[in-house]
């Protein structure tokens, strides 16, 4: 049974590659920078204070010493020794398996095509983002997600191209997930967990990850067969790794204690996502 399903998955991937070969110089990239320097100055409102009411703004408005408002916040890590073991495992997994594979894969497939594959996976995960946008009361963003799904699945050929952004000006809203939704509802991150293979997480984000899996179409394609689900996950991760080669290495090399530096990065990043501190989606005026 399992091998039969593996064959189907392999067939799907082959079909995907054939489609990609047909579209060749892919529709993924409509944002060629042209001859000029790739700088755009957004003309959107200069004084929209409400959007930036965060710690940086507090620092800006504060009349006291310049060191104030710098958070020393960090996350509880009672399982540190176990987490460190898994961190070392993941580190080896990256250098011994993922990186060599991703390097070969990157040499075979052009970057445009790998971006198309990333778009394909991202398009499939639309239920996760729509539901979590609704749960957070972001009706507008959930509508954009649905519209993007409709356009990208059709005009964008099963999600390979981001036609919604390139042709219709529908830029992707910030990606919402259940971990963030729970955070918005006031649930703290809990403790830090560094899962083998899956990497940095927290108790809250782990619950979120499991919940979101129920909204992932690939979960139902895998239909309870763990090896099929693992194959889908591996394919997406391999593709992702091929697009970010070098990032992890550089971070590890320039951190004094890579494990805790990574923990801190994860914590800061997720706090930012929960509080929507980024100004994503507020694209440049064209």
């Amino acid at each position, binding site marked *: 049974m399992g091998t039969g399903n593996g064959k189907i998955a392999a067939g799907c991937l082959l079909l995907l590659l054939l489609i990609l070969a047909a579209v060749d110089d892919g529709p993924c990239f409509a944002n060629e*920078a042209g001859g000029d320097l790739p700088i755009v*100055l957004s003309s959107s*409102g200069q004084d929209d204070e409400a959007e930036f009411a965060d710690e940086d*703004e507090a620092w800006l408005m504060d009349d006291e010493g310049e060191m104030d408002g*710098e958070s020393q916040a960090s996350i509880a890590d009672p399982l540190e020794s176990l987490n460190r073991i898994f961190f070392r495992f993941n580190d080896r997994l990256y250098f011994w398996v993922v990186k060599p594979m991703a390097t070969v894969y990157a040499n075979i497939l052009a970057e445009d095509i790998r971006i198309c594959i990333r778009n394909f996976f991202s398009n499939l995960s639309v239920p996760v983002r729509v539901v979590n946008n609704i749960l957070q009361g972001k009706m507008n963003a959930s509508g954009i997600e649905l519209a993007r799904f409709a356009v990208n699945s059709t005009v964008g050929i099963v999600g390979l191209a981001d036609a919604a952004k390139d042709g219709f000006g529908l830029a992707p809203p910030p990606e919402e997930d259940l971990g963030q939704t729970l955070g918005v509802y006031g649930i703290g991150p809990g403790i830090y967990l560094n899962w083998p293979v899956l990497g940095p997480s927290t108790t809250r984000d782990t619950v979120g990850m499991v919940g979101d899996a129920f909204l992932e179409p690939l979960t139902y394609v895998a239909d309870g067969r763990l090896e099929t689900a693992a194959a889908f996950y591996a394919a997406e991760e391999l593709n992702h790794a091929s697009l970010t080669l070098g990032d992890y290495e550089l971070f590890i*090399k320039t951190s*004094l204690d890579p494990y*805790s530096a990574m923990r801190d990065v994860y914590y800061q990043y997720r706090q930012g996502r929960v509080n929507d501190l980024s100004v994503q989606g507020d694209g440049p005026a064209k």
Partner: protein
Amino acid sequence: MIGRTGSKKRIIWLLTAVVLLAWGLPLGSSAANDPLSQVKNAVQEVLRILQDEQLLAPDMKEERKKQVEAVVDTMFDFAKMSKHALVGYWDERTPEERKRFESLFARLVKQRYIGKIDNYTGQEVVFKRQRVKGDRALIYTSLIDKGIEIPITYKLLKKEGEWRAFDMKIENVSLVANYRQDFSRIIKKDGFDGLIARMREKVAEVEADGK
């Protein structure tokens, strides 16, 4: 009626805008005391160096890196950055210790953030907006990398009439805060000398890799 007053209003508004622009333009483009244009000029300069075809030759690699680092040096205030990264330990350091720390920290930061310039593939930078109050400023930008938007915020302070960045947040992850945690952990364990030794080791490791 409504349409006519509407269009009249629009014309007046337009005229005002033109006058304001004419006033603002020469000031805006030359003024070094505007934090946005300072960051923008620096970023523009880095992008120009990265796109310079002459510097793409393999034997120009070192030269290219040197030029980028020179721009980064004018953009960032590494002394201030060091002070912020050593909050709680800075005051008790001697001037020599501060100097030593600053030069190592600057090298580490440059290794992390310009280590990727060899892989530059036409990333775009979008300037979203600036927020200024007194001698403090925030510049919100985005890096568009392979179709994905990565928010980057610069924190600046004005010193002797020049705006210099002392922190940068990528996806809400602060450079200074991240290193601060890293440093304080090592100081608690091995003291300040242990930290310096560890930083030396790291910097040398990466430099050996690059060759």
